[in-house]
């Protein structure tokens, strides 16, 4: 009995000793701390880099959404309030003619063969619409404002967006139905305030956007246009002799030919077909 007890006690003490040895071997605290520390360090470095990068990517994505690209040809599609319409390009009228534009202000259609200078010009007086529309065809953005509704600080904000900013022009447009209207070829946005963030979004999306204006590379310098004394805006509605929206002539400057354009779409108005050929 005693010997059995002794044996048992000895056995248990051996087991205890053994287990203590095993415990000591399986819990190397130094190694555990080192391992956790290295993991934590590596994890936080990665976490820092990841958060920095996603912040930067988010910022760039916010900016890039207004930059035209092959996958985002017309960023203005995402701007609330932009209206679009397709117009055939390159139809010209004479300086003495008027165009019966379909919209106010127009942003496409026949236009004078001389374009208004759009090298960052602030026009203080309203300019003949037929010249302004031609500049849109060259990739410019035209900021028009109602002179009765926009002045002082608001007007200064518009000026800063146009003065010296190439491919941009600003002019008053008497009778405009909203304080401010932005035009690029085939696009328009009307806003109430010069502080509206959509103004800059419109300019970034559409000014010289190679996917949306017809004559890529065309100039905003205009040697035959008098910037300091431009042809004046005409407030009266155009008469019956005005060139219709599907009229105008195609100038072929290379050969010197001037061909009359037959409206491809059937005329919807007018019993007498208006002459599209300029009277010389």
């Amino acid at each position: 009995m005693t010997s059995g007890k002794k044996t048992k006690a000895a056995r248990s003490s051996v087991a205890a000793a053994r287990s203590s040895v095993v415990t000591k071997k399986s819990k190397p605290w130094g190694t555990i701390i080192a391992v956790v520390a290295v993991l934590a360090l590596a994890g936080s470095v990665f976490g820092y880099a990841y958060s920095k990068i996603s912040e930067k990517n988010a910022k760039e994505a916010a900016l890039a959404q207004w930059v035209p690209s092959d996958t985002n040809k017309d960023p203005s599609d995402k701007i609330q309030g932009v209206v679009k319409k397709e117009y055939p390009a390159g139809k010209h009228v004479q300086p003495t003619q008027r165009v019966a534009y379909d919209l106010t202000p127009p942003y496409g259609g026949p236009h004078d063969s001389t374009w208004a200078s759009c090298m960052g010009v602030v026009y203080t007086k309203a300019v003949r619409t037929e010249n302004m529309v031609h500049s849109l065809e060259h990739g410019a953005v035209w900021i028009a404002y109602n002179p009765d509704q926009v002045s002082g600080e608001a007007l200064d904000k518009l000026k800063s967006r146009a003065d010296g900013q190439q491919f941009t022009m600003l002019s008053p447009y008497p009778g405009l139905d909203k304080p401010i209207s932005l035009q690029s070829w085939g696009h328009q946005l009307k806003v109430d305030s010069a502080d509206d963030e959509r103004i800059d979004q419109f300019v970034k999306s559409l000014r010289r956007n190679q996917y949306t204006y017809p004559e890529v590379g065309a100039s905003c310098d205009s040697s035959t246009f008098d910037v300091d004394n431009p042809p004046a805006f005409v407030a009266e509605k155009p008469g019956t002799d005005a060139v219709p929206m599907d009229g105008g002539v195609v100038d072929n400057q290379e050969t010197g030919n001037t061909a009359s354009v037959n409206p491809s779409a059937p005329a919807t108005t007018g019993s007498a077909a208006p002459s599209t050929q300029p009277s010389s």
Partner: protein
Amino acid sequence: MSDVGQQRGVTATRAVVVTVAVVAVLLLGAAVGLLIRLPGSDGGAPAKDSVDVGFSQDMAAHHLQGVTMANLARDKSADTAIRQLAFDIESTQQEQVGRMKGWLSLWGMPEQSPDGTHMAWMEESSSHAHGSAEATGGVDLMPGMATSAELSKLRSLSGTEFDVYFLQLMLRHHQGGAPMAQYGATHASLAVVRTLADNMLKSQTSESEYMKQLLTARGAGPLP
């Protein structure tokens, strides 16, 4: 038996340490990969805030005003030397603008500074000196650029008065663009950009000398 247990413990510990070491190295590698963009990984297109993009956008705009003034001189001047100079400036700069806008198009970047300010790409050195937040921004009017009022005055003149004022504005325009060309020639990442910038610097420097001579011959000097 105790040796085997010990052996097992050591093996397990080693496995854990090695695994953690591998994970840590992978995490650090991933972090470095996020922070460093290897050249060529994005088809070689320079970043939005790079010297290459900033130089191309701003120099194109700077050049285009040179074209505007040269066009005026070709239309208005009766002086053969002025008309010849104007044609040279207009045709050269227009062609160079085409190069720069072509690059920008390839890089998927806007043709002109989207926020209307300029020169932020040249602020690298000064922003390091200042420290931090004010590094962005840029200026509204680039050095040498004529204001709308100056352009209007140029259009209003004629005869020798026009020729002299054209030379004065164009000389200041060339001189203002020189530091931009200098910076592009030394800091742009792409050789094609550095080469064009360097060429502009050289040709415009000699053209500036020529314009000084033309001014002297007309009894005038540079703008104060």
